[in-house]
């Protein structure tokens, strides 16, 4: 038996099993990304021209801004991350995706859930809790879809041929369990018929937002990066002992963060949160060391390729983590609370870290899964540079604006004056948003053209099959999938 031959035929099988589920997940995700960024841009423009679209109640700031965030996180980040995780689970297990039809159904269910949720927010049915704005119907759809995909991923993991575990496994499997836990808990508390009254709602909201935006995205992003970086660099992941330590400390301490220092709740909650945030330095440090040791000295010329995306993503992760920890520090928090600083940190986490790593992973895996190169490889490179500049222009001015605003508020200036300081920074950051949107359009173009080509291929194949004499084809099903 020739092992390499066996392996490559196995790789073909894996790719074939993933083709339809991944197209279903990524295609919708790319659309939601564009929708989310357009909504975000509309929300941004309202700071410069308050009359812009103000006649239309659907597009007022209070509805557009949360809809934009949710479209990017729930519409793009989560389904794209699930797709990439399915691919990595199948690859690491060295076997085709288990129950391949389940994720296809789940992907459509998920995108339907996002559609219902965004429609709900824009029509004014938002629940009002940050990151949980989707009305109840959408939450049920999203939860069901996630569970279905998680079942498929867990089955692929459970039936794996290659039994040894890889560091990415810990992160990604934890992420599979984490989301159903936090999403069901938060929705049952805040979105059910019997809601706890008063400040408890905010505490649950902070816990959920921290666990989703900080811990879940970190688990997914770092898990994917720990798979992709060594793979593209062609070397082993450095210091897997650090990785285990980073994983354990991240899920242990990261989950306690999130309660703001100035929160009007019993003092032990913010005190514990701040102490935990300081301890989150440990996983950040470990992840930084692993990334540097894996990346430095690797002979990879990336020039805007997947490697660049993942490297930039990891850099953003460390930076956003440091900002997150510093915002939990009582001395800084007193200045930074209620300013643009928190918004900037969240956007860095979403766009600079999670989205960048997912872009890189999709550009890396899609040509392999589809068995052909990207339709516009130059778009992918341009996407990297445009998005990198866009994210920096979006986030850095907002960070500076947050600090200036906070200092002004702290020195006793009037609230309106302190707010006006941010205006010149907002101009730059809206330009950044525009660039990120441009990059997302290039990404969507690549993805959608690829999906359309695949669909045309399938249709051609079916027509050829119908036209052909009966005895010529014996296995129609496989022909259809492989084409």
């Amino acid at each position, binding site marked *: 038996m020739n092992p390499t031959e066996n392996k490559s035929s196995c*790789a073909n099988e894996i790719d074939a099993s993933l083709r339809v589920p991944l197209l279903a997940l990524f295609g919708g995700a790319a659309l939601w990304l564009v929708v989310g960024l357009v909504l975000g841009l509309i929300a941004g423009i309202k700071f410069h021209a308050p009359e812009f679209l103000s006649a239309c109640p659907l597009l007022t700031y209070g509805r557009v801004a949360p809809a934009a965030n949710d479209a990017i996180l729930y519409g793009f980040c989560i389904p794209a991350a699930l797709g990439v995780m399915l691919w990595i689970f199948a690859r690491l297990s060295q076997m085709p995706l288990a129950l391949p039809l389940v994720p296809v159904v789940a992907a459509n269910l998920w995108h339907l859930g996002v559609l219902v949720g965004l429609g709900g927010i824009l029509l004014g049915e938002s629940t009002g809790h940050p990151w949980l704005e989707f009305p109840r119907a959408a939450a049920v759809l999203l939860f069901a879809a996630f569970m279905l995909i998680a079942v498929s991923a867990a089955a692929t993991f459970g039936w794996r041929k290659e039994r040894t575990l890889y560091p990415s496994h810990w992160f990604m499997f934890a992420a599979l369990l984490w989301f159903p836990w936090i999403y069901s808990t938060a929705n049952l508390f805040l979105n059910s018929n019997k809601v706890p009254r008063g400040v408890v709602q905010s505490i649950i909201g902070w816990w959920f937002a921290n666990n989703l935006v900080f811990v879940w995205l970190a688990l997914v992003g770092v898990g994917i990066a720990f798979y992709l970086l*060594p793979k593209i660099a062609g070397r*082993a992941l450095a210091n897997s002992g650090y990785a285990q*330590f980073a994983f354990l400390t991240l899920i242990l301490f990261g989950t306690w963060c999130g309660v703001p220092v100035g929160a009007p709740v*019993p*003092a032990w909650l913010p005190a514990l949160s701040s102490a935990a945030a300081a*301890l989150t330095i440990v996983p950040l440090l470990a992840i930084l060391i692993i990334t540097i040791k894996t990346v430095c000295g690797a002979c990879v010329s990336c020039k805007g390729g997947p490697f660049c995306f993942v490297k930039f993503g990891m850099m953003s992760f460390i930076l956003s983590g440091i900002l997150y920890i510093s915002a939990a520090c*009582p001395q800084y928090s007193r200045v930074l609370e209620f300013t643009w600083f928190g918004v900037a940190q969240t956007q860095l986490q979403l766009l600079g870290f999670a989205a960048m790593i997912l872009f890189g992973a999709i550009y890396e895996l899609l040509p392999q899964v589809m068995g052909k190169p990207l339709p516009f490889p130059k778009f992918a490179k341009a996407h990297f540079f445009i998005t990198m500049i866009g994210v920096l222009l979006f986030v850095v001015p907002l960070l500076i604006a947050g600090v200036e605003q906070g200092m002004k508020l702290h020195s006793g200036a009037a609230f309106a004056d302190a707010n006006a300081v941010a205006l010149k920074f907002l101009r730059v950051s809206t330009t950044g948003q525009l660039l990120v949107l441009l990059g997302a359009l290039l990404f969507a173009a690549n993805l959608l053209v690829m999906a359309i080509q695949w669909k045309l291929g399938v249709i051609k194949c079916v027509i050829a099959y119908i036209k052909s004499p009966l005895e010529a084809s014996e296995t129609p099903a496989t022909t259809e999938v492989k084409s």
Partner: protein
Amino acid sequence: MSAENPAAPTVTESAAPRSAAPMWIIVVTLLLLFLGGYYFDQHSGWFNAKVYAPYANAEKLNSFQPQSGETQRIARGKFVYDSVCGICHGADGLGKPGQAPPLAASEMVICKGVSRLAHIPLAGLNGPIKVCGKDWSLSMAAMGAALPDEDVAAVLTYIRTSWGNQAGPVTADDVKKVRADMGRNAPALTGVQLLNLPE
């Protein structure tokens, strides 16, 4: 390029060299854990649901609360005790050897009636006396003579209910009565005179 193994043939899909977490990062974790624990101890109020920032513990918070009735009298008594009596008898009520006998568990303090006890701060005490099985021979000035009745009552109530003492309260009327019986400028009592007084 093989799909499983894009660049280096030596790296297989799930290979990552096994290594333990290094010592220094564990030390850093423990150090941060200690600092975090210290911060928590200083700022959390130890899970007390009534303590909110910027206050850090329940005692400090209670000192800002307006008080009423018995609690207020005891707090006033503690204040007077700390500024007048505590210098010799000690903040813990255990007295000081060669300076002042103990008040905690002292038979003079926890007796049933309050008249004899009230004489001590109002008139002063001179000469030998037996307290808690030990002989003392000192002199105490009439420290309470200049205090208003309410303060003397408060301080006596405080010493009768602190440090494990569990005797009843002293009212301002009790003190007023003793002062009236004693007359103005009464001389300091001796131990024998004191014991001859009714409880």
